[in-house]
């Protein structure tokens, strides 16, 4: 059975409809990429999944439970963690305190401070610094580490590489297989199609709030993907 099922998900901002009947499923341990151009609805989908945007309960089912109507903190207690777009660190807290916030959910598991520092040694060096003093890439590491500290079963990463230097993007993508392990599933939202498809087993392409294409990265041709991506 799929870990996460999205059934006919609609999302609205006031009068504006951002998502139209999205159907999507993710199996345990699977890494799924969500690609699409600006305004395609990727971030709205992430907001819905993480509870930042409330939906009809049955539209999102996680491990057999309808969670579409839950608040963000209730969603995270059920094992869904978000690495938000733009990192969204806590500026008055140090690097380590930012990471410790991830333990507020109270989910025990394999991820501990020591393991995060092993994954990103630079954070250990900077653990006592203000999170604002870090570079963009290091901040992204904190944001990922903070989400992992909640020991999620499903990790949502919104705009993983946005605004980061290519060398940093490369190193974060290299770390991904270590991050997504032990049966954890992940949804990666990305504008960089090549990077996203390189780490995922399946992808969904969104266009104007609808799924325009889905499949396995190898199965679809570049032309098919770019047609679904740009809508031309």
């Amino acid at each position: 059975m799929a870990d996460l099922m999205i059934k006919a998900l609609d999302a609205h901002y006031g009068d504006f409809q951002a998502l139209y009947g999205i159907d999507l499923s993710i199996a345990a341990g699977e890494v799924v990429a969500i690609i699409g151009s600006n305004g395609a609805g990727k971030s709205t989908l992430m907001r819905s999944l993480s509870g930042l945007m409330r939906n009809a309960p049955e539209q999102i089912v996680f491990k057999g439970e309808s969670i579409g109507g839950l608040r963000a903190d209730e969603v995270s207690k059920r094992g869904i963690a978000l690495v938000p777009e733009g990192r969204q660190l806590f500026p008055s807290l140090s690097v380590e305190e930012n990471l410790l916030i991830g333990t507020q959910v109270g989910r025990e598991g394999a991820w501990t401070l020591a393991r995060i520092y092993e994954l990103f040694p630079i954070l250990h060096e900077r653990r006592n610094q203000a999170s604002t003093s870090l570079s963009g890439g290091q901040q992204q590491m904190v944001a990922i580490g903070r989400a992992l500290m909640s020991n999620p079963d499903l990790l949502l990463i919104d705009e993983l590489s946005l605004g980061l230097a290519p060398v940093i993007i490369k190193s974060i993508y290299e770390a991904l297989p270590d991050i997504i392990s032990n049966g954890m599933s992940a949804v990666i939202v990305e504008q960089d199609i090549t990077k996203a498809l390189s780490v995922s087993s399946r992808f969904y392409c969104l266009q104007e709030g609808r799924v325009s294409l889905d499949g396995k990265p190898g199965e679809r041709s570049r032309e098919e993907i770019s047609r679904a991506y740009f809508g031309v």
Partner: protein
Amino acid sequence: MSRPSHTVHRSSPASRAAAIFGLIVLAILATAPLWAGRADMRLMSELFLYLALASLWNLLAGYAGLVSVGQQAYVGFGGYVLFALTIFLDIHPILAIGLAAILGAAISVPVALLIFRLRGAYFAIGTWVIAEVFRLGFAQVQALGGGSGTSLPVQVVRSIASGRTMREWTTYWMALGLVVAVLAIVYLFLRSRRGLALTAIRDNELAAGSLGIDIWRSQFIVYVVTGALAACTGALIFLQKLRITPDAAFSVNDWTAFVIFIVVIGGIGTIEGPIIGTLIYFALRETLADLGTTYLIILGVVAIIVMLKAPNGLWGLVRARWGVELFPLSYRVAAPKK
């Protein structure tokens, strides 16, 4: 994988020195009846109660992000509870102060349910409206003197202690005890897991929520605790004044505007800030109060200069420059000894 064995602790030489210094100051203050005059003790009691209100407002606004301009609701409520319980039910005033805290907590629950629907500036205005509702409500209670207020009956005052001197000592010690308790509660609260969550909420509500922090609940707890302690402080304030009127009890100037001034110039979002701010406020007031309106203008100018030149307050300036923290909340790392 081996890592250099850094040690992590919260305290620093500065915080340990501050703790010892604090205990010495506390011992000196506790023995004030032996060395201070009547007027000095009154002034110090007032200072302690302002420090308590400032620390509570700092917890509310500086940490929980609940910028209220209506805390006078609880100060006045506490004062009226003291008068009502002692006059109508013959409850001992010291017990009534404790009950004021409990009733303050009880009344803050429905208030929170109502005003937590508001955000930001609307929340601030909402709290003020609630305080006005309290003021108008108590002004209707004829048994407590209505709009012109009432005095604490002589027998109630006498029940604190028979002699005037002992009475003054008792109220002084209660004020000192209250401020120590408030500072301890604020400090321990912020050191707890919930304290870290509060800071996270203040910094970024959305991110805090998606990391499993129940924002509503965290803010609710802070609101109820500060409401209870503000009511307790209010009861003590009006026990010293011996007279209460709706205008004095629910004065936005006395119990919120000056308190915000104290917290802002001292340094919002730090425990030390309100302490520095209270000392500065009283120093200004005692030296300049004779100037009348000019005094208020000077207060305003000081507030504007501090906000422009040191937005984190005077303690923020000290901390940025020397990195000292007298009440250690954050962790620090010490390099391994070679």
